Each structure stands twice: as C-alpha cells, then as structure tokens.
C-alpha cells in the first residue's frame, strides 16, 4: 500500500496542475507493478473522483472554475460516458489503445498550435452561449490583473464534450486532455479556467464510470483506499500552486504529458494481443 500511496501522490499533483484526471498515468504504472488491469482501471476511477474533488475544491474557492459552463457540459459528458462504457463491453481492447492515441494526438496538435496565446482575444458570443450566460472573470496572479472572458460555440462544445465523455467511458479515464481542448479551442476559455473546469467535470464522469465497476465487483478497497488518499494529497498541493504558474508553463507541461501518453498508448496497442 505504501508504494501505491507514494505513486498516487505524484500522479495527483500532476493531475491537478494539468487538468488531467491522472488515471491515464496511474493505471499503466499499477499494471507495471503487477496489478491486474481491470482492478487498476476500477480503482483508477475512484482515484479520479478524489483528484477531481480535491483540486476542484481549491479552484472553486479561488473562482477559477466556471460552474455554469461545467453544469451545461456535464449533461453531454455524462451521457457520453454511459454510452462509452457500454460500447467498451463489445469492442476489442487493442482498438481502444489506438483510439486512445488518436484522441490524445488531436489534443496535442490543437494545443501546440496555440502556444503563443496566453489569453483568448475578444470573443463574440453566439446567441445560445449568451443565453447560457457563459462568461466570467478571475484574478490571474501570474499576470497581476483581472481577466474578463466570454465563451462561444456552446452547441459545438456540447458535441465535443459528448465525445470526451464517450472516450472517458470507453477508455476508463477522465479524458481531461480532450476536455481541456474542447474548452480552449471551441469555447475559447482561458487555459487556467479550462484546467479548473475540466477537473470539476471529471469527477462527475468518473462517478458514472465507477458505478459500473462497483457493480462488477472489480473495485478493491485495499487498492482504491491508498490511491484515493495519495491522489487527494497530491491534488491538494497541485491545486494550491496552480495559480502561481504562467498559463504558458501549464500548457507546456500539459503537452509533454500528452505526448508521453500518445507514445505509451501506441506501444500498448502494438504489443497487446
């Protein structure tokens, strides 16, 4: 349990800084330590809830989460997760690894093209986004000023979040990378708000996924408990220091992690039976 605890602390920290749920890092590490993959995925789902809730508590208190956008987007991501989990029961695991790599690649490509942009430029809201009141403001410590922002493309973002939920349900992850991409590329959300809102939404997606593993008897307390404790501690520390980093640094860190995951998933896809 001690090894699992320490690994989980590190993963929780990274998850909070990047907006990733952490399970996509934690699951392969546990498998490497000899934990059966299904048990690792099941416990990973609970760890995602802990990461999400732990860091989301800090972000919400610091007004970095756009809760209205989160609630609207949760409709789509939860439905997607339920359908995705159902699809996984009939699809070959090898195909899942390649799908994983492809969807991460789209995130990597989309964000790497926008590395020079710290904050979204003046956004003209469409009518539906305006009706949903998708806007906000926050104080950015790194920039030393209050940032006002508006979001747009709410309909398209809903579709994007459905796909994110589908991927999360299919792959047993939070799909934080894809969610952050949808927030930034479609909704035009500032990256700090995007990471915080992604963390908020991931908990809900993970709960829907965890319910499936719970009913299947794949969730073991001896594994899930140290993971939950570890990622919570890591996420708490990560959440407290997020606002002290410039947006660009967070995005670079995010890209490095996404790139590593792409390589890892392609490797698993090629080597799995």
């Amino acid at each position: 349990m001690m090894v699992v605890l320490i690994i989980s602390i590190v993963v929780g920290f990274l998850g909070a800084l990047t907006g990733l749920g952490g399970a996509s890092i934690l699951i392969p590490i546990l498998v490497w330590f000899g934990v059966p993959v299904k048990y690792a995925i099941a416990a990973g789902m609970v760890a995602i809830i802990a990461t999400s809730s732990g860091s989301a508590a800090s972000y919400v208190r610091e007004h970095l989460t756009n809760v209205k956008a989160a609630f609207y987007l949760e409709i789509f991501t939860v439905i997607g997760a339920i359908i995705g989990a159902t699809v996984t029961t009939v699809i070959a695991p090898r195909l899942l690894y390649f799908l994983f790599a492809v969807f991460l690649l789209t995130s990597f490509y989309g964000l790497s093209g926008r590395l020079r942009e710290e904050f979204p430029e003046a956004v003209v809201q469409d009518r539906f986004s305006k009706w949903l009141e998708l806007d906000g403001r926050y104080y950015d410590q790194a920039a030393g000023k209050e940032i006002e922002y508006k979001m747009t493309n709410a309909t398209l973002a809903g579709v994007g979040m459905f796909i994110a939920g589908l991927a999360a349900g299919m792959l047993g992850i939070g799909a934080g990378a894809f969610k952050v991409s949808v927030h930034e590329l479609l909704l035009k959300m500032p990256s700090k708000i995007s990471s915080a809102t992604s963390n908020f939404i991931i908990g809900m997606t993970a709960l829907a996924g965890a319910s499936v593993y719970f009913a299947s008897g794949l969730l073991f307390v001896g594994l899930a408990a140290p993971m939950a404790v570890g990622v919570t501690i890591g996420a708490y520390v990560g959440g407290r220091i997020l606002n002290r980093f410039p947006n660009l640094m967070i995005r670079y860190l995010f890209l490095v992690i996404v790139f590593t995951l792409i390589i890892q998933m392609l490797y698993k896809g090629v080597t799995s039976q």
Partner: protein
Amino acid sequence: MREPSLEKLETIISYILIFGVVASVIIETVGIISHYYSEGNINITFEPRFALKGANLFIFIGSTFQDFLRGSFTSLNILNLGLALLMITPYIRVVASVGYFGMVRNIKYFFITLLVLAILTASLITH
C-alpha cells in the same frame, strides 16, 4: 463585479467538496492503520471480501451505515465507508446545486442541473 449568487454557490460547492474529500481521506487513513493492526500488514490483496460490491451505490452506502449503527467497526467497514463517502461527494454537489438554483429561482440552471442529476441517478441505480 462577479455574480453574487454564483459566489454563494461556489462557496457551498467548495465546502461540500472539501468536507467530502477531507472526511474520506481521514476515514481511509484510519482504515489503513486499522487494517495494519488487524491483519498485521498493509499488503494489497484481492480476496473477494475486499471487493466493494452491492446492488447499487445507494444500497451499499445504506448497508455500510447500518453496519456502523450495529457497532461493527471493522477495518473493512471503515475503508468501505471512506470510499463510499468519496464516491457520493460529486453526487451531493449536484444535489446542492439543484437546490440552490431552485432557491434563487434561476429556472434555466435549475433544469440544467436537474437534468445532470437525473442522468447520474439513472446511471447509479441501473448499474
């Protein structure tokens, strides 16, 4: 100026998440220590008795609390309680949001959050 009602909701959600996470972490830590003293080690085992299982999450939480009310404070029950509390935390924040938007008569977000709650409840009951 930020929307005042939204700030209140953010504070409520923050407290729910903090309470859920802190309480579950404390309970889990107590459970792990208790497990060490009762089992003599903290090795991870995959025996069936360590699997979380129930008809659905709500029934599992109910039966875990019933065990505590009956005075069954085993390390397994403590660990189960911690995980159940963690899993129910995001659910409670949606319930609180529905209640809050209803109270401040924000019909738009009342129905949006209610829809999220309905989908999530259906998923938790049917699995």
